[in-house]
């Protein structure tokens, strides 16, 4: 009988729930990495999180004390849910990367806040026994540092992707950053070696450390080029995971520990995979040589040739094989639907239309797939660039819509180019090339693109959506 009472007292229920939650996180992540099971995986992980949250509120005890302030906690959860739900549902699919970054930052900020609040409560007995240099204090300080950097960095990444923060590239920036990082570590060492009786004496240092970490987070992301932002978000994502895991150490909480570390390591691997898709090293991204070289400054030369809408319509309608290369330009113009309309129209005329999807097209790997899926483009029509490249010499027209760097031949020809070695869609091998572009501006990586000066290339200037709309009516009128 007493066994049951003890069971119902909650401690075992709590621990069992945490185990269940951890298993659901792992299963969820596993399922998320396969297209067929991905959605269920996500929901499974969400259930795990729900269980863990409810069980914590009901059964968590700290020195025998149950969780207090429950009404406030519930109000806070309701507010968070409402805001999170609305933002997540309302934001356009094109803004997805920023959104992930934003939510990531929220998690980082929560981790930092927890550390800030726990620091003054480090038990005096612990300090009397082992001084400030103990695992508890280290977990708090690391949680504060990593969480804050992740928060500040994510907000900058958010701003950059949203277009209201530009790049800031100064040569000596990396030395400044390294210095600040050293200062942060110095703070940890300083705080942990103080001889005090109570942690509250050191609270002011915590706030200074927080401020320094904010500066570091900002400066860490500032110089990194916009095209590299997905990699940075993925990296910051794993940072937040580690910060959450620090909380797990703090509270001896297995769910936080597994969840946090799992994301930390999976996020790191994901970051490396993304770098691989761009053929760059992580260090390369962080130190930010992108666009810094300036060696590939030879002017490409030649002139660009334009094509009229009706010529383009005729060319497309009487082709056998058309390949569309969508880029971020298509996404920002919200042109994915009209683009699909064009491809349906052409298919009705017996033209075979495929989409060439570069792994890093858009603002995130896989971003383009999501956007085209949103426009109901069938999955079978989306072909990865490696698979479509051998087919391109037999392609009559390749239409490049708002893409630039992913078709830049400099990646193959110019060893001095910052994107040299990046796998590309070999657009120049097609028989005809139509490039839809807003103007002659350079791509996101700010590199000249010789493809535009190619003899086979014709340009169609204008907003992607408007141009496609006009093109659709021209094709209809034929």
């Amino acid at each position: 009988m007493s066994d049951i009472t003890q069971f119902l007292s909650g401690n075992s229920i709590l621990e069992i729930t945490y185990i269940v939650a951890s298993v659901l996180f792992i299963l969820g992540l596993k399922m998320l990495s396969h297209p067929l099971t991905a959605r269920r995986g996500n929901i499974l992980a969400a259930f795990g999180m729900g269980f863990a949250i409810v069980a914590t509120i009901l059964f968590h005890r700290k020195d025998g004390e149950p969780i207090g302030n429950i009404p406030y906690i519930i109000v806070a959860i309701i507010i968070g849910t409402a805001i999170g739900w609305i933002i997540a549902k309302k934001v356009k699919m094109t803004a997805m990367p920023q959104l992930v970054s934003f939510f990531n930052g929220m998690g980082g900020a929560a981790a930092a806040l927890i550390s800030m609040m726990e620091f003054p409560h480090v038990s005096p007995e612990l300090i009397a026994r082992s001084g400030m240099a103990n695992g508890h204090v280290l977990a708090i300080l690391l949680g504060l540092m990593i969480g804050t950097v992740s928060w500040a960095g994510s907000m900058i990444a958010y701003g950059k992707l949203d277009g209201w923060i530009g790049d800031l590239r100064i040569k000596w920036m990396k030395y400044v950053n390294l210095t600040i990082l050293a200062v942060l570590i110095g703070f940890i060492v300083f705080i942990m070696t103080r001889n005090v009786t109570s942690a509250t004496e050191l609270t002011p240092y915590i706030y200074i450390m927080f401020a320094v970490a904010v500066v570091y987070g900002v400066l860490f992301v500032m110089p990194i080029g916009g095209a590299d932002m997905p990699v940075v978000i993925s990296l910051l994502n794993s940072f937040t995971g580690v910060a959450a895991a620090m909380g797990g150490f703090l509270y001896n909480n297995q769910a936080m520990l597994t969840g946090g570390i799992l994301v930390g390591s999976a996020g790191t691997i994901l970051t490396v995979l993304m770098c691989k898709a761009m053929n760059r090293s992580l260090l390369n991204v962080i130190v930010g040589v992108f666009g810094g070289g300036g060696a590939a400054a030879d002017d490409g030369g030649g002139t660009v040739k334009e094509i009229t809408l009706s010529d383009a319509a005729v060319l497309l309608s009487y082709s056998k094989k058309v390949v569309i290369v969508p880029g971020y330009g298509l996404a920002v113009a919200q042109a994915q639907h009209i683009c699909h309309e064009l491809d349906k129209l052409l298919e009705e005329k017996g033209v075979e239309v495929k989409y060439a999807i570069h792994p890093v097209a858009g603002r995130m790997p896989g971003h383009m797939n999501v956007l085209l899926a949103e426009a109901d483009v069938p999955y079978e029509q989306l072909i990865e660039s490696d698979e479509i490249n051998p087919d391109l010499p037999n392609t009559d027209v390749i239409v490049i819509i708002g893409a630039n760097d992913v078709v830049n031949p400099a990646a193959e020809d110019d060893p001095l180019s910052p994107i040299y070695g990046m796998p590309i869609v070999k657009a120049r091998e097609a028989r005809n090339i139509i490039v839809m572009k807003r103007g002659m501006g350079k791509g996101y990586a700010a590199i000249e693109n010789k493809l535009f000066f190619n003899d086979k290339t014709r340009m169609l200037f204008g907003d992607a959506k408007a141009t496609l709309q006009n093109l659709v009516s021209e094709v209809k009128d034929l």
Partner: protein
Amino acid sequence: MENIFDFFLQHREAIFIVILSIFLGIEVISHVPAVLHTPLMSGANAIHGVVIIGAIIVMGHAESTGSMILGFLAVILGTLNVVGGFVVTDRMLEMFKKKK
């Protein structure tokens, strides 16, 4: 030195979990197709929202008004991370499913 050993002994279970989780995380996602990079990142993003448990614990034992406010804020931010993360991921994946 003694501190380090002490720390190790005290936290050996946690350290165990950490090491196993690192390998698990690597193993679980090492064969993911590029198409799923974004949803996977977003899903993982939601999972580290587990930090909300810490926020609930702090809030649940907060005494002063100051820590109540900070705790309240932490719970909101944590919830944002969790709810926003899962909902966005679901929205992305919903689109993959539609044309089946």
